[in-house]
C-alpha cells in the first residue's frame, strides 16, 4: 500500500493546488451531506410562518425563506440530494458506458461501429433536453431524474473507454499476452481495464459535477426532486417568484451549486494532472 510509488504520488498530490482546493471543496460537500443525515440546525422541512423572510441572525445563519424554513438547514439537507444524484447517475454511466466501450474496443468491426454510432446519435441532442424528455415520459421524481441523467452519461463513458482501450490494445504487451494464449475477454479485464482506470476516474469526477448541474436544472423545472425533499434546484425555482422581495433566497443555493461544481471540476483537473504528469498543463 505505502510503497515508493504511492508515497511519491501523495507528495505530488499535496503540492498540487487545484487538487487540494478542489478536494477540500468536495470534502466539504460530502461532510455537509453526511452531517445532515443526523443533524441540521433546524428541521429543513418544518415551516414556521411567523418568521418568514427573516434576515440572517445567530439563530438562523442564512435567514429563513417564504415559509419560515431555516435556509442553512435546507441547503445542508439539499446536499444529500445532489450527492445521491451524482453517485447514482455516474454509477449508471460507468457501469453501462465502460462495459459497452470495452465491448466495442474488444470486438471491433460492426459491433464497434454500431455502438459508436448509437453514442453519436445520443450526443447529437443536448443532454439536458434529452433528460427533460425522458423524465417527461417516464414521470417526474428524484429517482427518474437520476436515471435520466445517468443514461445520458453512458455515451460519454463509452466513447472515452473505447478510445483509451483502443490505445491499450495497440500496445505490444497485449500482443505478447495474446501470444501467451490469453483470450480477448481476460485481456480486457486483466490488462486493458486496469490501464484505463485512471482516465475513467478523472472523467467520473467531472461527470459528477455535470450531474449535479443537470439535476438542479431538472428540479428547477419541477421535474426532479419533489417537495418536500430539499433540493438546491427547487430552492432556486421557489426563489424565482421572490426575487424582488428577498433576492438572497436565490443566491444561497446558487453558491452551494457553484461551490460543489467548481470543487469537483478542480478535483478532476488535479487528478488528471496527477495520474498522468505528461498531460499536465504548463503553468
Amino acid at each position, binding site marked *: 500500500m505505502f510503497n515508493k510509488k504511492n508515497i511519491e504520488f501523495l507528495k505530488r498530490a499535496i503540492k498540487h493546488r487545484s487538487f487540494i482546493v478542489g478536494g477540500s471543496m468536495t470534502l466539504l460537500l460530502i461532510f455537509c451531506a453526511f452531517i445532515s443525515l443526523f443533524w441540521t440546525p433546524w428541521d429543513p422541512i418544518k415551516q414556521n410562518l411567523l418568521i418568514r423572510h427573516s434576515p440572517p441572525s445567530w439563530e438562523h445563519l442564512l435567514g429563513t425563506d417564504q415559509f419560515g424554513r431555516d435556509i442553512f438547514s435546507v441547503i445542508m439537507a439539499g446536499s444529500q440530494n445532489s450527492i445521491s444524484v451524482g453517485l447514482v447517475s455516474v454509477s449508471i454511466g460507468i457501469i453501462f458506458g465502460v462495459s459497452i466501450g470495452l465491448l466495442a474496443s474488444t470486438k471491433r468491426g460492426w459491433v464497434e461501429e454500431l455502438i459508436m454510432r448509437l453514442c453519436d446519435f445520443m450526443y447529437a441532442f443536448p443532454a439536458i433536453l434529452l433528460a427533460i424528455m425522458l423524465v417527461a415520459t417516464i414521470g417526474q421524481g428524484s429517482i427518474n431524474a437520476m436515471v435520466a441523467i445517468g443514461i445520458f452519461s453512458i455515451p460519454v463513458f463509452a466513447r472515452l473507454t473505447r478510445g483509451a482501450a483502443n490505445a491499450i490494445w495497440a500496445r*505490444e*504487451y497485449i*500482443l*505478447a499476452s*495474446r*501470444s*501467451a*494464449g*490469453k483470450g*480477448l475477454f481476460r485481456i480486457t479485464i486483466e490488462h486493458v481495464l486496469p490501464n484505463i482506470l485512471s482516465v475513467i476516474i478523472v472523467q467520473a469526477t467531472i461527470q459528477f459535477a455535470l450531474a449535479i448541474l443537470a439535476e438542479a436544472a431538472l428540479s428547477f423545472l419541477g421535474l426532479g426532486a419533489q417537495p418536500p425533499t430539499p433540493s438546491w434546484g427547487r430552492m432556486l425555482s421557489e426563489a424565482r417568484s421572490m426575487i424582488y422581495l428577498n433576492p438572497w433566497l436565490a443566491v444561497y443555493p446558487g453558491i452551494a451549486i457553484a461551490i460543489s461544481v467548481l470543487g469537483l471540476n478542480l478535483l478532476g483537473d488535479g487528478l488528471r494532472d496527477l495520474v498522468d504528469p505528461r498531460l499536465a498543463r504548463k503553468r
Partner: protein
Amino acid sequence: MLDIKNLNINLNTVYGDATAVRNLSFKLEKGKTLGIVGESGCGKSLTALAVMGLLPENSWSTGEIIFNNKNLLSLNEDKLCKIRGNSIGMIFQEPMTSLNPLHTIGKQIAEPMILHGKVTRSMIKKEVLNLLDMVGIPDPLKRISSFPHELSGGQRQRVMIAMALSCKPEILIADEPTTALDVTIQKQILDLIKDLIDEFGMSMILISHDLGVIANNVQEIIVMYGGVCVEKGYTKKLINNISHPYSQGLFSAIPTLEMQEDSEQRLKTIPGSVPEITEIPKGCTFQGRCEYVSDICVKNSPNSVKISEDHEAYCFNLDKLN
C-alpha cells in the same frame, strides 16, 4: 511438425488491397531451427503473426499452416488460445513495451502456466523462480516482485524469454529478439535462446534482418524479399554458395573487422529501396534493384532453381551470376 503451404497474407491498406506475403512454403521439423531474413516490410513478421493467428485487423491469410496435423488457419479463436503459449511460444522485438507496466514480472511469467494449467497453485512461485534463474536473472527471489520499469532492456528480454518458454512449447518464434538491444547483450540473449532450445529440444523460427545473426544461430535459412522467398537452404550450403543477387547484396553488407577505410573496401549497398507494398511489380519482386535484370524478370515470376541438395533460389539469371 510445422508445415506451411502456399501462405498468402493480404493487407487492406488505405491505398487498396495488397499482398504482403506470396506463396510462401516451408517446413520446420522437430528440434530444428529455421531463420527468416529480409529487410523491413518483406513480410517476415507477418508470417510469424500468421502462424500465431494474431494477424492485425486489416489483414487475412490464405493457404495452409499445418501444425501437428491441424490447419491453424481453420481453427477458431478458442482453439488457437490453447495452442498459443502452450505449443507455440513467441518473443517480440521490443522488450521495453512487451510487458504490462502494472503487473510484477513474477505475475506475468506465471500467467501462461496458470492459463494452460501447467502448474498447481502451490508450485507457481517455485516454478517462476526456476525460470528466472534459468534465463539468467540474478537474485530471482528479489526480482520476482519487480515491476518492468525496474529492469534493463536485456533483463526484460530475459523475462520475455522466460514467459515464452514457461510452458515448454514445441516451437519458439523469436521475432527480432535482439534488435532493440546493444551488441554485447545481443550475443548473450542469442546464446541463451540457443542453449534453452537445445535443452528442451524445441524447434525455433528466428526472424531477423541481420544475416549474420541468422547464419550463426539456425540450421536452415529463408531469405525473403518483397513478400516472397528468394532463396532458401541449409545454412552451411547457403552461406558457402550464396546465389540470389539479393542474398548476395545482404551478405556483402555485413561489415568485417578486416575492412579498411579506403574507397575500394567500402561496404556494398543495394541501390534503391524496397518497393511500397502496393507497388510490388509483377514478375520478380527484386527486378527494380537487380543489376542482372532482363526482360524475362519483368514478365514472369521465377521458379525454384535447385543449386544443390537442400538449397534453392528463385532467379532466372543464376548462370550469369556464378
